[in-house]
């Protein structure tokens, strides 16, 4: 089995649109949450949202390259450009080597809505235009980026709800460790528009603390009352150690373990057993005891039952170790399809700069989770190994373990 490393990262998020800004935000415990007032016109129960500006790609991409990209595709392009730069990769390298892409994405609402509006109003599909089909397919990000960056390896979108991009990294780890690919561009993109979030709001799943947007997402706190939808994109260069050493890459971390499981129970109600299986499988793959994990980036989205059940699973596996836990969703909101990839990047940045980012807005725990070591304030600490959880609708679970690279 080949060793697998991460050799480049790029991020476009509500707490910063480049690595440096995001690192500062994580350290400062800065929230990226605000109000999208227009949501009330649609009848949203909550107008809370991650706030992010769309990048202007005119001049960076040709028209043909731009018209196929939906909102989350634009974020993914910018994040991938940064990851390639961070990984010291250029178009010449991509042209002369077999590089793949596994990107997490699980919706693309706006182009679908716009096309249907034209059909309903004009009764003429020829007025939909050429970009719509490429924007509206679920595989929009992997299909567009593979063409823009001339990729010739595996080319797939991973759709696993809010664990999509964590699974993308895990599957890249399997493909590379098995010798099938040397380098795969991994990541996740998440649209943030109101139209894509309405049906989720309809489930009454969102936080209603609209008067205090920065404190609305409060994972593990006993007053939490829902998640805050958010988005952006995150990209990682996942590569065999051999390939990274050969090209003299700056190695940011080594993927040591990938765990997965399916709850096999309910569409939206999480359980304890499924995440526990995922955690144990990740530890087994990594050949590690729970005590080797220095920090856990929890999935915890700030929903009452989700956080409770994840906390219980964590206590069952890590209860004897008092492992520090935080949910960066307290700052970013729930980045859904993007979250698995972005939270690995957040954790890598903490590892690189020796700190644990705070679980902001955490004041007091549930009775059942009193012994969970939630880190509420930024803590300076050396981190050798981190674990990141991502769970999604349908009961899909993913866990990644990443260590500092050591020869």
């Amino acid at each position, binding site marked *: 089995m080949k060793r697998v490393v991460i050799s480049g990262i790029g991020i476009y998020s509500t707490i910063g649109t480049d690595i440096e800004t995001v690192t500062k935000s994580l350290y400062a415990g800065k929230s990226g949450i605000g109000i999208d007032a227009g949501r009330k016109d649609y009848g949203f129960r909550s107008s809370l949202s991650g706030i992010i500006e769309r990048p202007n790609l005119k001049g960076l991409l040709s028209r043909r390259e731009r018209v196929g990209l939906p909102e989350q595709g634009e974020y993914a392009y910018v994040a991938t450009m940064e990851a390639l730069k961070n990984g010291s990769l250029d178009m010449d390298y991509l042209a002369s080597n077999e590089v793949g892409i596994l990107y997490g994405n699980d919706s693309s609402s706006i182009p679908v809505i716009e096309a249907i509006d034209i059909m309903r109003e004009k009764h003429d599909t020829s007025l939909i*235009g050429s970009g719509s089909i490429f924007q509206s397919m679920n595989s929009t990000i992997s299909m567009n980026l593979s063409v823009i960056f001339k990729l010739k390896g595996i080319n797939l979108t991973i759709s696993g709800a809010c664990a999509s991009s964590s699974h993308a990294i895990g599957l890249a780890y399997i493909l590379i460790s098995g010798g099938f690919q040397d380098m795969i561009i991994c990541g996740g993109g998440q649209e943030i528009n109101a139209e894509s979030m309405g049906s989720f709001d309809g489930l009454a799943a969102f936080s209603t603390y609209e008067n205090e947007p920065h404190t609305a997402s409060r994972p593990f706190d006993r007053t939490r009352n829902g998640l805050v939808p958010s988005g952006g994109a995150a990209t990682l260069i996942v590569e065999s150690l051999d390939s990274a050493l050969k090209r003299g890459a700056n190695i940011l971390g080594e993927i040591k373990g990938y765990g997965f499981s399916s709850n096999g129970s309910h569409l939206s109600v999480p359980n304890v057993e499924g995440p526990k299986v995922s955690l144990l499988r990740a530890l087994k793959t990594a050949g590690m005891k729970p005590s080797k994990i220095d920090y856990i980036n929890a999935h915890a989205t700030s929903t009452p039952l989700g956080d409770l059940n994840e906390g219980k699973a964590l206590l069952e596996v890590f209860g004897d170790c008092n492992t520090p836990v935080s949910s960066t969703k307290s700052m970013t909101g729930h980045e859904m399809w993007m979250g698995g990839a972005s939270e690995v990047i957040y954790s890598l940045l903490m590892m690189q700069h020796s700190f644990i980012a705070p679980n902001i807005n955490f004041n007091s725990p549930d009775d059942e989770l009193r012994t969970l070591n939630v880190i509420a304030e930024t803590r300076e600490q050396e981190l050798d190994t981190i674990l990141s959880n991502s769970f999604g609708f349908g009961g899909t679970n993913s866990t990644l373990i990443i260590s500092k690279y050591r020869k």
Partner: protein
Amino acid sequence: MQREKIVTIINQFLTEEFEIDESALVPEALLIQDLGIESLDFVDIVVIIEQEFGFKVTREEMVNVKTLDDMYNYIAERA
């Protein structure tokens, strides 16, 4: 519609939307070879013609439109 107006609308679309340099927009310019317009772009040209000039274009008719001048003429005959 006056031919001059057709030229203005089409050229403005090609420079602003397709980002083609204005100096390349000479009547004899071949759409594919000289202006770099590709198969998918014709889908969007159909949209702009329908929106701006109010008649429905078929892809079959567009096959005979080779140059910019052909396009002006094609629209002038129908608009």
